[in-house]
């Protein structure tokens, strides 16, 4: 589980001081489906980046599965990102010169997994995300929805405990957005923690727990069971 206590993150823009995160206390249980909402500049992306260990808080403690991770070294945090966290971005962030299969394979390569095992796991992922016939295509040859599917497959290939998605449907049309969201929710159903940053109210309402941020503070934290 994720436990943030007293997390502060401050940016300085010239003479202006921006409290992106202002003493955030937050517990997220494993397997939760959480939407982080709020106007732009409210700190919701910063919160996601802190949870994903991409950004270091200036103050406060972050415990992941009982282990204090906010003070770990850069290389140790990288290892946690590799093993426990999967990122999905609004703009997909696929490497354009690598094929769909190779993009999905990247986290396995970074973990030093042997080529034979990589091949099997990539094949499984391609199969699971319905991308088998697109394996050899470069990202430029894929539709937006397919690209995001590749990105999600890449995020899931290491079987992370949490998926962190920053506006995952922001660059997709409505139909494709729905498909991608359905896919993410499907993953959540298998037990993966799903944290989505969005300003889309409808999308936010689908989550079991909705967090609203304003000026770096949590102003609402509602849990509601849909099912």
């Amino acid at each position, binding site marked *: 589980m994720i436990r943030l206590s007293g997390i502060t993150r401050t940016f300085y823009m010239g003479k202006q001081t921006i409290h992106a995160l202002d003493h955030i206390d937050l517990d997220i249980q494993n397997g939760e489906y959480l939407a982080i909402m709020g106007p732009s500049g409210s700190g919701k992306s910063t919160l996601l980046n802190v949870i994903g260990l991409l*950004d270091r808080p200036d103050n406060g403690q972050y415990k992941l599965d009982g282990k204090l991770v906010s003070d770990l070294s850069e290389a140790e945090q990288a290892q946690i990102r590799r093993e426990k966290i999967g990122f999905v971005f609004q703009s997909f962030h696929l490497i354009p010169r690598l094929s769909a299969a190779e993009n999905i394979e990247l986290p396995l390569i970074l973990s030093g997994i042997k080529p034979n095992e990589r091949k099997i796991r990539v094949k499984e992922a391609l199969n699971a995300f319905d991308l088998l016939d697109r394996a050899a295509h470069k990202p430029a040859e894929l539709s937006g929805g397919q690209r995001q599917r590749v990105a999600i497959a890449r995020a899931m290939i290491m079987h992370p405990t949490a998926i962190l998605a920053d506006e995952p449907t922001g660059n997709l049309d409505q139909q494709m957005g729905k498909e991608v969201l359905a896919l993410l929710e499907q993953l959540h159903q298998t037990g993966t923690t799903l944290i989505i940053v969005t300003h889309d109210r409808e999308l936010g309402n689908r989550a079991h727990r909705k967090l609203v941020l304003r000026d770096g503070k949590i102003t609402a934290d509602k849990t509601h069971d849909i099912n």
Partner: protein
Amino acid sequence: MTLTDTFRLSLRTVISYRLRSILIILAMSLGVAAVITLTALGDGARRFVINQFSSIGTNLLVVLPGRSETSGAFPGAVLGQTPRDLTLKDSRLLARLPQVKRYAPLNVGEAELSAANRLREVTVLGSNADLIPIRHMKLAQGSFLAHGSTNSAQIVLGAKLAQEFFPLKQAIGQRVRLGENRFLVTGILAPQGESMGFNTDEIVIIPVEQAQSLFNTTSLFRILVETKTHDAIEPAKRAILEIMKQNRDDEEDITVITQDAILATFDRILHALTLAVAGIAAISLIVAGTLVMNVMLVAVNQRTAEIGLLKAIGARAEDIRLLFFAEATWLSITGATLGFLVGHIGSFLFRQAFSQLPAWTPVWASIAGILVALITGILACILPAKKAAQLNAVHALSKK
């Protein structure tokens, strides 16, 4: 990430940025090729000179008048003395030394040669019969200066002169006028071309005493001495100095140069020249290294979002750094290999075009060229790789 995967991934990058990679490889390979070809030329020149020296004779000593000083002005000039001349008497003294196989006195001057209504200025060598074996010269026709006689009125013509003066007639047996005196042509030198400053095709050789009277002198320009063996060169040099000293009021006012010493000097000079040329060519490699740095810095900027992504999916700063180093290594290795090939092809073409020039690249130059290319290429990557590794992942990801 394993090293194999690092190199494999960076190879993909090198291949996909094709134009950029080709340009860097080109710059690198030109630098390496320059080192290899230029050192081949430098070393070829060195070998060429050494061959030339060997061709003018073996086990050779040259005796010349005057003491060669390493510092200061002529001591003779200060004391009001001039160095004593070398004479024919001196040369005969040398002949008695046990180490000496044969000797040839030498006088050099210019005189007008005229025959068959033609006239031109020629270089005149005065010597004896042993000049031919000592200098490894060859006769085309007739006979050389007669043994035992140093004042017969005979003349040996260079190949080109014989052709110029007697284009239609047999030159042997013709009479020619050299300065005031008349000579009988007894031999013609084989064409040899340029050899140590003389074009032997355009000289005439007459007996030494004839030359002395022609130039109105009793002194000699040099005495060439051939020793019996290579090992006898140094003892012969000492013996010559000793015997000359005894006959010259105990004063050592001659100089003996051994061919080995001249060779060694030329060898040193030309080796230094080769090194200098290699150094200049190596500068082009450093320029190529700067180019690599430049291009890699641009690459870091271009691939900022990608670097952010790699960090997000768990790449350590170390992994990113290694990826950039691997990329530079690929570029440098390919450039160095290509340059090695181009350089050796270049040297080969030089050898084909100038058959006299043994333009072979010394092994040290090949190794140094490749090493300098690899080292500059990889050093040039330190800064860009560091910059990439230290990128802030959040900022990097927000860049499109």
